[in-house]
């Protein structure tokens, strides 16, 4: 009985370690691992392994996050290892990201969400140019589309990209923008 429990525990630990390795090493162009790949690496019970891993990485400030795929199936879900809590402003700055670029992305996400999740790129550009120089708008939109934060379809419509769903708490973002704007208006 004891031997069986020990073997199960060792197997679980091995699978959790494997899950961590699979998640932390980028394989393709985009980060994260699809549900079907997880199943291949960890077996049918991969969700339980992910739960254990998520608890294990919590003390390091990380969590395993699931982004649902377009068809909502388990296989199409994407699993990622991400920061449990947002970084501080200085941490974000030291990672080499420009404040202006983040401001463009924040404004774009909020603008797209207010337009029911999709809007013509031309309209976004027109709006952003009131606040940012043209070259930065063009450069940032292209860059964020390439990195998966935004998606542009063949009709020139911009959507929220899978990476935004994975990394950004959109409700918090919208709430913060609204509350900060009220503070700015009072000043």
């Amino acid at each position, binding site marked *: 009985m004891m031997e069986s429990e020990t073997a199960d525990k060792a197997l679980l630990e091995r699978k959790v370690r494997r899950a961590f390795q699979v998640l932390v090493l980028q394989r393709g162009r985009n980060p*994260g691992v699809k549900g079907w790949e997880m199943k291949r690496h960890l077996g049918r019970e991969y969700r339980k392994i992910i739960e254990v891993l998520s608890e294990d990485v919590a003390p390091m400030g990380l969590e395993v996050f699931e982004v649902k795929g377009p068809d909502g199936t388990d296989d199409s879900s994407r699993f990622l290892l991400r920061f449990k*809590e*947002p970084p501080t402003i200085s941490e974000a700055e030291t*990672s080499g990201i420009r404040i202006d670029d983040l401001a463009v992305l924040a404004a774009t996400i909020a603008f797209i969400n207010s337009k029911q999740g999709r809007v013509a790129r031309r309209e976004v550009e027109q709006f952003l140019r009131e606040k940012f120089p043209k070259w930065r708008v063009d450069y940032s939109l292209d860059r964020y589309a390439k990195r998966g934060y935004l998606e542009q379809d063949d009709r020139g419509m911009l959507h929220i990209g899978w990476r935004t769903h994975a990394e950004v708490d959109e409700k918090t973002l919208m709430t913060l923008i609204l509350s*900060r*704007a009220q503070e700015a208006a009072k000043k």
Partner: protein
Amino acid sequence: MLELAQIVKLQDQWLKQRASALYIDPLLIQLKLKLLPKEALSEAFVKSWHPVAQVDQLSPRGLEKAFVYWRELTPISERFKDQFGTYGTRPGVVDYSDLVSLGVFTRDEFEGSLSQLHEELLQKSNGEWVDYRAFIGDDSFESKVRRAYLLAFLISEGRALLKTEPLTGNIWTMALAEKVKGLPKSVAISITGED
């Protein structure tokens, strides 16, 4: 039936969006975004941001692909030879004698073409300025370049005049019945296939 299903799907999406906390009046959010300084916008983003933690590494497969790519990559001096010919010759000036030696013109043809173009310009301008691009414009790019080249000779010889309007970008030309003498000025005019 399919169209009806699509309408129901779109209505469903619309209702979900409106019911979610993400729905805010577009005009309101635009106003708020305009009010906020860039720093506050980026701060709002960072406070709602959970960056992905990952390790970027080069796998043995990636290394192999890079090696094969590099091995099979044609040297830059050879890469565009098919499309653009060899490198090493800088842009230069082709004068009349070069064209004659290249067989583009014979001396008689050249003189004849110059006179013909001068006569055509004389008739079209009739003492008035005519649009340069309209005058050289023709069906083919080759013909356009040929007429522009010949016209440049007429202008250099003082048998035609050229006037440019920097503000509008318009270029005008006019034929002269008699040669004029004066201090010539150089004008660069680009001619493309679209003009």
